[in-house]
C-alpha cells in the first residue's frame, strides 16, 4: 500500500511520519506538497503535525485553503483513509471533514507529555488491531488541543461511535486529572460518520520505537495497513 504524507508550509511531523512508515513499518510512502492536486495512487493520506502557516489566524484556518485540500475532500468522499494528527486534526476540523473545534488548552500553556488513551471504538479502520478499551501510551504536543463540540454534536458522535480515543489514566479510567488540555469528555480523537477520516491530537508516530520511549503508536498504523490490505484483496470484513 502507499501512504501520502502531506506537507504544508510550517508542517514538521512530516519527516517523523515518513521515518516511521518507511524505516519502522517498511511501507511505501511519499511526501505530497500542499500545492499539488493529485492524490491518485495513495491508499491513505496523513495530515501531520506542525504549525501550518504558523497557526496564524487559527490553527488549520489557512491550510484548509491549500489546493491539496480539495483533493483530500474527494479522497475522503471516496472512502479512502485520511488521518490528521495534531495540526492535521485541526485542519480537518477547519475544513469541515470532521465536526467540532480545537481550542486553546484550558491552562493556556503548550503541553508536551506522554498521555494514556483509551480506545473507545476498536472496529474502526484505524483501531481494528487494538483490543476493546485498550490503553495506549502516546505523547501529545500542542497548544490548541482542547476539543469542543456542542451538545447535539457530542450526542451524535456518541451515537455513531465516532469517538476513537479518550484521555485516561494508566488504568483506563476516564478522569479529569488525565486530561492534558481540557477537552470536552476527555476526547482525544474522533472519526467522521463514515469512519474513514480520523483526527487525533496525540502523536502515534512518536511512539513506534522503544528507543524513543514507546511502541503503542504502531498499532494504529498496523490497523490501517491491515484494513487497506484487506480491502485490496477484495475481502469482506466479517464483524
Amino acid at each position: 500500500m502507499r501512504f501520502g504524507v502531506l506537507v504544508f508550509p510550517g508542517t514538521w511531523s512530516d519527516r517523523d511520519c515518513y521515518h516511521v512508515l518507511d524505516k519502522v513499518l517498511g511501507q511505501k510512502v511519499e511526501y505530497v506538497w500542499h500545492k499539488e492536486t493529485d492524490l491518485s495512487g495513495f491508499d491513505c493520506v496523513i495530515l501531520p503535525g506542525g504549525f501550518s502557516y504558523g497557526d496564524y489566524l487559527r490553527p488549520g484556518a489557512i491550510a484548509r485553503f491549500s489546493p491539496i485540500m480539495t483533493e483530500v475532500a474527494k479522497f475522503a468522499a471516496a472512502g479512502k483513509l485520511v488521518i490528521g494528527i495534531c495540526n492535521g486534526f485541526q485542519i480537518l476540523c477547519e475544513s469541515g471533514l470532521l465536526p467540532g473545534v480545537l481550542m486553546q488548552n484550558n491552562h493556556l500553556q503548550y503541553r508536551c507529555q506522554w498521555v494514556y488513551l483509551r480506545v473507545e471504538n476498536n472496529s474502526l479502520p484505524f483501531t481494528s488491531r487494538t483490543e476493546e478499551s485498550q490503553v495506549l501510551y502516546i505523547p501529545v504536543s500542542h497548544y490548541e488541543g482542547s476539543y469542543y463540540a456542542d451538545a447535539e454534536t457530542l450526542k451524535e458522535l456518541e451515537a455513531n461511535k465516532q469517538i476513537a480515543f479518550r484521555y485516561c489514566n494508566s488504568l483506563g479510567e476516564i478522569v479529569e486529572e488525565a486530561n492534558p488540555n481540557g477537552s470536552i469528555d476527555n476526547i482525544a480523537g474522533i472519526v467522521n460518520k463514515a469512519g474513514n477520516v480520523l483526527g487525533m491530537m496525540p502523536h502515534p508516530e512518536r511512539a513506534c520505537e522503544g528507543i524513543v520511549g514507546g511502541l503503542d503508536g504502531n498499532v494504529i498504523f498496523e490497523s490501517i495497513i491491515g484494513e487497506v490490505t484487506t480491502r485490496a484483496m477484495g475481502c469482506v470484513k466479517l464483524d
Partner: protein
Amino acid sequence: MPISKETLDDVALSKEEYDIIVQDLGREPNLVEIGLFGSLWSEHCGYKHSKLLLKLLPHASPRVLVKPGEENAGAVDIGDGLCVVMKMESHNHPSAIEPYQGAATGVGGIVRDIFTMGARPVALLNSLRFGPLSEARNRYLFGGVVSGIAGYGNCLGIPDVAGEVYFSPSYSANPLVNAMCVGIAEKRRLVSSRASGKGNLLMLVGADTGRDGLHGASGLASQTFEDERELRPTVQVGNPFMEKLLLEACLELADTDYIVALQDLGAAGLTSSAIESASKSGSGVIIDVAKVPRREEGMTPYEVMLSESQERMLVIVKKGCEDKVKAIFDKWDLRSDIIGQVTDDGLAKIMDGKEMVAKAPIELLTSPPLYRPKGVKPNWLEALQKSDFSDIPDIRGDASSVLLRLLSSPNIASKEWIYRQYDHQVQINTVVQPGSDAAVLRVKDTKKGIALTSDGNGRYCYLAPFAGGIIAVAEAARNLSCAGAEPIAMTDCLNFGNPEKTDVYYQLEQCIRGMAQACKILNIPVISGNVSLYNETRDEAVYPTPVVGMLGLIEEIDRLCTTGFKRKDDIVVLLGGTDTDTDSLGGSEYLELVHDLVAGIPAINLNLEKRVQQCCRDAIKRGIIHSAHDCSDGGLTVALAESCIAGNIGIRAKWKIAGRVDSELFGEEQSRIVVSLEPSRLRDLERLATRHHVPLQKLGVVGGSRFIIENMVDLPLDDVTDAWKGGLQRAMA
C-alpha cells in the same frame, strides 16, 4: 561635518575610537559610515574587550572542523560522514525589556546560525537566570521568557531537550537568556559564509526590512541601562513561521551547487552580515539599499543598513544561478531580491540607487581596537572568601526538613514546569528526555547517540572566578559522562558586567583562564561561543556567569545511562570525593537557602575530576552500573533523592560523618558521582576504580518506599517526590 557626541553615543563609539576612524579613513566619516563602524566595532560584533582573552581557550582536536570565528557556528566530526554544528548565544537585554519577544528572537537567531551552515537543527537548549520568584516582576519575566522560547521553538519543530535555570537576586534587574542550537549535517555539505568570487550576487531573502531593532548590537547589547523598560522599541518581533520556511528553503538550497555562501542577518543586520561575509574571504561588496524591500516608507540608508528585522538571510549566489535559486524560494513563498554583488576591491560600498552613501575598507571596518584593561581582585571578594562558617549552627535533628526545603527550592526542584511547555520529542530522536543529567538523542541511520547539556554556576564564579570557570566546564563534562558520553566539543556564552570596570574584568579574565585550564585537562575544544557584557543595571553587575554548552558522543546508543535507580537491592556507591574533614559549604545552595549566606570558596581538583569521569564512562561502557548521577546543587543527599525520585524507588543509606553534618549532607564538593549496581558487580567496579585511582565508597541499598539516611533523614519517598516535583509550580502559583 563634525559628528556630535550624541551621535557617537547612539552607536556606542568613544571619541578615541572616532579619532582612529578619521585617521585611518583619511577623512571625517558620514552618518551612514558612522553607523557601520558603530555596529561592527560594538562589543557585540567586535568583541573589543574579550577577543584577547578568548584566545586562551583551546580550539583544537582531531574532530574539529570549524573553529570559533571562522563561520556562524563551530563544527565537529562525529564519524559516519556526519558532523555536529553548534553554538550558544545570549539575548539578555532584549529579554529584560520584552521577555516573550526577546527570548523568541534569541531562539530565532541561534537557529539561523545553525541552518546557515547547511545543518538541520536537531536540538535546542536554554540556560536562564532570573531574580527570585517571590517577586512578581521576576515571575513575569520568567513566565514570558519560557513562553517565548516555547512559542518560537515549537513552531520550528526543533526539540528543546535540555537546559538549566537559576534564581538569584543578582539577576533581578538583568535576567540572562542564553539559547543554544545543535544541528547535524553531512560533512561534505557544510556551507560556508565566505562571500567570494567577483561578480557573484548578494540575494536578500525572507522578511522585509523595517525600523525594528535599530542599534540593537551597538546600543542594547553593548551598554548598560538605567531603566530597560524604556527601550522596548529596540526589541525585534519574531515570526517563527517565516523562519521555518527559511530553514527548509536554505536546507534545500544547501543541497545544490547554486550558491557560494549563506549568511544570516542577526545583530547589526545587513551591515554585519554582508561586511563580515566579505571580510572572511578578503573580498569587497557593493550593496544598493534601494533594492532592499522595506516594510516601512521613508527609511534612510542608515536605517536600512542597521535594521535588525528578523528572519532574513543573505545568499551569495553563483552568477548565472539566480533564477534557479529564486525558484526554490518561490516554492516556499519567500521573497528574494538581488541587492548587490561581490567585488574584489576590499571595499564596502553602499549605494542608494545611483548615489554612493558610504564607502570604507572592509579591513578597517572589521578591525576594532582591542582592549585589555587591567583586572584587579576586589577587596569585597577577599572578605567573602575568608568567611568562617563556625558561627553557623550545624544541622541537629532537622536534616529531613532541610532536605525537603532544598528539593522544593526553584534552583533544585524539577524543571518539568518549563520543559513540558517545550516540544522535546519532535524529530523522534529524544532517547533521554529533559530532567536527567544530560539529554541524549539518537543519530538516525547510525548506532550513535549525542548527549547535550548546559551548565554554569554564577554563584561559584562570583566567589571564586577561576575555580568557578573550571567547575562550569567540569560539571558539564560530568553530566555527559553520567550519560556514558565522551565530551567532544564545547560552546559557551560569557555573561558579565561592564568590562571597563577593573573588578568585572578581573572576573572575566579569571573565569576564562579557569575554563581554559579545564578544557585543556579534560581535552575538550571550544568550537564556538558568544560574549555578553554590560549586564548591569544601576551600577550592579550580574554574577559573573559563564554558561557552558557541551556535546558528548555515545558510540553505541544502547550503552547509555540515566539518573534514576533501576532495581531493588542494587547497591549505591559514591565515585570520587575526598576523605578530608574540610567543609564544602562555600557557595552552596544550602548556605544561601537556609542561612541566607553567599560566601566561602568553591574548589575543585581537576585531575581527580578527570579520573572520576573516565571511571564512570568506563563502568557504563562495560555495563557494570545501572545508574549514574552527578552530585551538584544540594550535594550528595539531593543527588540520592533525585535518583530515587527518577527511579520511583527508595533507599536506605548510611555513611560515616566526620565533620559538620550539613557539609556532609548538603555540601557541594565536586568530582562526585552516585552510581547503582548489582551487588555481584561491586568487585568489577572496585577494580575499575582502583585502576583509575578513584576513591569509592558504599552508601546504601536501593529499595522500599522510604528515603532513609540512617540517623539523619527518614521520609516517605512520596513526600520527597512531591517536594521536588511541585517546587517550581508552587513558586509560580
